[in-house]
């Protein structure tokens, strides 16, 4: 009997992993040949204007192409301009990278709700790592305090205060689930947000028009909007930045958790996980069967949030 249920369990877990492996990411939108020419034309005009002595930074910024459409050269120029702008504004030298997705990797989180004690170290580490606006305070992670005996998120409290953990409560940290079937990228009218090959849903902050349709579409309340120009002190700036993740955002664009891709794509762990004193968080490549996350999904009774919506999230929760 025991063997049977174990087998069943591992079958189901195997099924989950298989499903993950089978998901083919949507092909990137087709390139538009004549448009490339058009952009090249605009760029050429820009170069001509530069040579004639006009300042074209504003124009370049205005006509900046979609991240996926930019050539390596164009990207370099854009990154240089962003670094320059940050230097002007905050007087810090940043190291702006653009790490590509790790081939074959599928990043995922596994979070133990038995261990999480609601101390919110992850929330603060995330803010510091990702150059979020301090005023108004933008946070990617929300920790929900729930009564034991219920799993109704709507009855939870994200604004609890006082010493934790409280008796008869448990804590559930939430952030972007990097869904495999993300409703947010589907609704974006300009494809300013998309899913990368390693499973991370990213945003081109220079392409987002700020319509906030993605915020209405997200069932996990993961997306935040810069209602104001983000406010940060010079000393608060994390100089280790990347284009698609934690560079300082402009006013009027949407942002969210990106699994710290400027760290994780280079082999480091996300800031929230590093900061967690309880060890509730495990992060890794779920496509690698020996990774912590794959092991947990295989051997623990894991679940995802709002599975019924078919979003296929990449944050697994479990009780030990």
């Amino acid at each position, binding site marked *: 009997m025991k063997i049977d249920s174990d087998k069943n369990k591992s079958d189901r877990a195997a099924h989950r992993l298989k499903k993950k492996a089978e998901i083919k990411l949507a092909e990137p*939108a087709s390139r*538009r040949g004549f*448009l490339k020419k*058009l952009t090249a034309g605009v760029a050429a005009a820009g170069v001509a204007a530069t040579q004639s002595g006009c300042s074209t930074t504003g124009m370049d910024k*205005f006509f900046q192409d*979609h991240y*996926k*459409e930019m050539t390596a050269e164009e990207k370099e120029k854009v990154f240089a301009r962003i670094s320059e702008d940050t230097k002007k504004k905050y007087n810090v030298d940043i190291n702006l990278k653009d790490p590509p997705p790790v081939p074959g990797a599928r990043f995922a989180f596994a979070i133990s709700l038995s261990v999480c004690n609601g101390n919110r170290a992850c929330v603060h580490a995330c803010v510091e790592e990702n150059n979020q606006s301090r005023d*108004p305070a933008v946070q990617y992670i*929300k920790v*929900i305090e729930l009564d034991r005996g219920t799993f*109704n*998120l*709507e*009855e*939870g409290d*994200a604004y609890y205060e006082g010493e934790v953990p409280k008796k008869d409560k448990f804590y559930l940290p*939430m952030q972007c689930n990097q869904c495999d079937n993300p*409703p947010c990228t*589907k*609704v*974006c*009218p*300009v*494809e*300013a947000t998309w899913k990368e090959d390693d499973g991370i849903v990213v945003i081109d902050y220079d*392409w*987002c*028009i*700020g*319509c*906030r*349709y993605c*915020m*209405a*579409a*997200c*069932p*996990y*309340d993961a*997306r*935040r*909007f*810069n*209602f*104001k*120009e983000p406010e940060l002190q010079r000393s608060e700036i994390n100089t280790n930045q990347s284009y698609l993740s934690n560079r300082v955002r*402009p*006013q*009027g*664009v*949407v942002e969210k958790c990106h699994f710290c891709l400027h760290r994780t794509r280079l082999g480091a762990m996300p800031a929230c996980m590093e900061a967690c004193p309880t060890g509730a968080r495990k992060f890794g490549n779920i496509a690698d069967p020996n990774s912590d996350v794959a092991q947990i999904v295989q051997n623990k009774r894991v679940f995802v949030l709002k599975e019924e*919506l*078919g979003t296929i999230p990449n944050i697994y929760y479990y009780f030990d």
Partner: protein
Amino acid sequence: MHLKHFIHSAFTAATSGGRKYHLWMGGLTAIIFIGIYAYSVQLQDGLAVTGMNDHVSWGLYISNFTFLVGLAAAAVMIVMPSYVLKDIDFSKAVLIGEGVAVSALIMCLCFVVVDLGGPHRAWHLIPMIGYFNFPDSLLAWDVLVLNGYLALNLAIPFYILYSHYCGRTPDKRHYLPFVYLSVFWAVAIHMVTAFLLAGLPARPFWNSSLLGPRFLASAFAAGPAFMILTLGFIRNHTEYHIQDETFSKLAMIATAAAQINLLMLGSELFKEFYFPTHHSLSAQYLFFGLHGHNALVPWIWTAIFLNVTATIILTLNPLRRKTHLLFPACLLLFIAIWMEKGIGLVIPGFIPSPLGEIVEYIPSWIELCVTFGIWAMGLFIFTILIRIALPIELGKSRSPLIAKKEGQPQPVAQA
């Protein structure tokens, strides 16, 4: 050559008028400037100056947008019978219906643009030039159908008016295919806008198959109601004669649509409250308040009260036939549907949030000023369009080239 004179006549018609006319246009201009100032503040300081936040991320702007798409779509109620079914009663009203559509569409586009966090990047939305997420994003669909509908509703009346101006009879082969197209298109703009909301499983309040049909029903109530008010005003204040038959037919359309709309409201209320689940929390918030938060409760019950009152007046034949009751009923119906389908539909979709947080929304002064500014601009455009169309349709405004050719003033031509 006619075109130069046409533009000149149009400009003259739009800029000359009595004292009341100048007061009206001056007042609208003042409101437009207040709106522009408020928008400049919003551009500078960001959407933080509005009442919106991460929880209620769409507010007054998108509320007005959804309502006005309906108003624009409702022009088809006038277009279809008069062009396609050759219903003579509506022919005089049809240009005015298209004027309503054009003004409403321009307002729609403005409301979308002022809602953007980065309006300078709006060019990313232009197909072929930007990066258009079609057919996945319903907002991309909306960009196409709204602009297409605008083009149709500008082109058809322009062709007809211009032909009349030049003393020609408009050729049906030239415009009728586009009229048929615009009929389908009108339904499309409304369904697409409804699908924009209904396609979000994250928001159970909108995620209903009834949303599209209900959008249409309410639009076909509010649209003709607005037309009745406008035509009533035109009949009383100009020489343009509109038959009683036109009013009674429009009133019939508004009545039927208002009845269907109420039926659907009942159906929705039943589904939400017979066996309430967590998906009914938004409806509970809207109609009865949730955990002590009840900002929209008086709003929605006022809307329902107005709606029911107007529908009763319209439904009872002897009452509907009395002009002094018909006009107030239409006004009530128009306001009720604006309340219900704008704020009453968009805001509760966000309350509670997907994580159950309840954050209420109150529009800020900046938002209100921008909104009034856009409405004033819509009325301004509508007034100008009517000012240009009426003299041509009355036969008063004709190209001087015709008179020269024939050596005598052109007799009044019929539409």
